[in-house]
């Protein structure tokens, strides 16, 4: 009787009653991974409205254009304007901006909408939440800059003669990406800690940029002191120059450093590790407190 079914009113919801869920319930690792994946999507505005996509993709555009221009210069003239390691350092301001916008997007938004009690009443620990968000931010920044570095490498690969040269360049690119990741870790940890303290995204973004900016003049003053040691250590004060110092120590060929860190390279590395560890520890403390309030 197909006519009868055809005549049945459409759009009626047939109440089949409540069904218990009998499928699998996955553990903490899956939950962590899901939150990380969602954070990564949020960082690039995926799954959100048009407005949320503007800034991240503008940044992606700028990074890619810079990379394409560098690639074009190198393929046409053979001149390397920026090395792979110099790339994230030169675009450091862009990276700070990206962290300042995306960091609050990841954590301040949740604070503002009061959604955290819903997370913490589930089998997701406060520390999982904090680390998943940090991992998402660090990955997003790293991916952003790695994309530019890969573009630069692809251009070079077509002009370089011989596999040996290409392999050399590839290794330099990997080192460059590692350096981008160090940038991302230091900037991301600082940015996320600041953002986790503020409910309003705009205020948090301002505070993050402020934290990076306010330390720059201190570096400038220290760098002009008549003491060579003070000059060499000046870079430790600001996260930007701190990471720059690590670049001079590990990634720049000797003699081409632009900051001047003397023989304090390992100290720069140690301070960066301590800074990240301190930020992560404070971030975890922050969320332990939030979960109880």
């Amino acid at each position, binding site marked *: 009787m197909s006519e009868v079914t055809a005549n049945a009113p459409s759009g009626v919801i047939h109440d089949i009653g*409540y069904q218990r*869920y009998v499928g699998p*319930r996955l553990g903490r690792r899956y*939950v962590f991974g*899901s939150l990380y994946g969602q954070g990564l999507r949020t960082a690039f505005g995926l799954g959100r409205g048009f407005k949320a996509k503007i800034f991240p993709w503008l940044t992606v555009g700028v990074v890619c254009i810079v990379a394409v221009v560098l690639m074009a210069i190198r393929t046409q003239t053979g001149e390397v304007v920026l090395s792979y390691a110099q790339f994230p350092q030169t675009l450091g301001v862009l990276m700070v901006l990206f962290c300042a916008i995306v960091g609050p997007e990841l954590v301040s938004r949740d604070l503002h909408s*009061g959604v*955290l*009690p819903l997370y913490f009443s589930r089998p*997701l620990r406060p520390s999982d939440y904090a680390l998943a968000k940090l991992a998402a931010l660090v990955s997003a920044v790293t991916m952003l800059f790695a994309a530019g570095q890969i573009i630069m490498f692809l251009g070079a690969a077509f002009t370089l003669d011989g596999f040996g040269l290409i392999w050399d360049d590839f290794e330099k690119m990997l080192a460059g990406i590692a350096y981008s990741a160090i940038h991302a870790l230091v900037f991301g940890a600082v940015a996320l800690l600041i953002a986790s303290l503020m409910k309003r995204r705009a205020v948090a973004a301002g505070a993050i940029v402020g934290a990076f900016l306010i330390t720059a003049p201190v570096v400038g003053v220290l760098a002009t002191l008549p003491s060579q040691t003070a000059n060499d250590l000046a870079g430790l004060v600001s996260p930007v120059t701190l990471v720059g110092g690590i670049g001079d120590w590990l990634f720049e060929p000797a003699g081409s450093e632009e900051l001047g860190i003397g023989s304090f390279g390992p100290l720069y590395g140690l301070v960066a590790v301590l800074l990240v560890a301190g930020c992560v520890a404070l971030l975890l403390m922050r969320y332990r407190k939030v979960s109880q309030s």
Partner: protein
Amino acid sequence: MTALSDLTVSVEPGIIGLVGANGAGKSTLIKILLGLLPPTTGDVRVFDLDPTADADAVRARVGYMPEHDCLPPDLSAAEFVTHLGRMSGLPKTAARERASEALRHVGLYEERYRQVGGYSTGMKQRVKLAQALVHDPDLLLLDEPTNGLDPAGRDAMLALIQRIGTEFGISVVVCSHLLGEVERICDHLVAIDGGKLLRSDHIAAMTTTTDVLVVEVSEGTDELAARLVSLDLPVRRDGRELHVLLEDDETYDRILRAVADLDLPLHRLDQRRHRVAELFSDRETAHV
């Protein structure tokens, strides 16, 4: 700061009302049940599990609906509830299906792809309930679920909670500062005040023992009262009304006979189920 002290209570599965004034410690109790706060002293068991030590196991089986706003305005209800389903460990597809189901059960089906920011308060409360249901918990903790709702919305929400507790087979703890609301739907009532237990009992035990008959006669109230007392029926006078404790069905007959014997014009005779509120009335007046 001590929000709760000397609180010992154990309840059976069903719909449990947790009643107390603002600041009585209801939310603190919920946080302890969720393992978010460790009790400074004492012992808590949820499904025979310690929520402080086995937090994950307890939380996997509990759904929590907070009192305050907790919805991001720029996501659709479907997306948000799906995400929280995954946060409870449901695989992606299952989370999406269960989110649709949960939203359908709370009466948000057509609207589920709209952004939550554009929802009414009633709809938002329903989304909050749906996210607590999405992972099919065995226990729901609802903190002031009728907050901000108009009378019709309250009735709908209470009916929904009742349905969840009876048809869905999920135990529910409903927190409220409005006794009149929870007493309508719950099986068991726990009343706390200032962090201390006032009373915890089955709702039936609280109400049946206090059923009274209200007798009103147009004249001769005193005569009738005297007659009833002589018949061994305890009488309490309240204005023109006489309150007689209802012991069994014979009480009706004895009252009617007494009225007939005295030939008084009976105005009314009806059974009044004492509302639970009256059980706490001494305390409530003491607060005023």
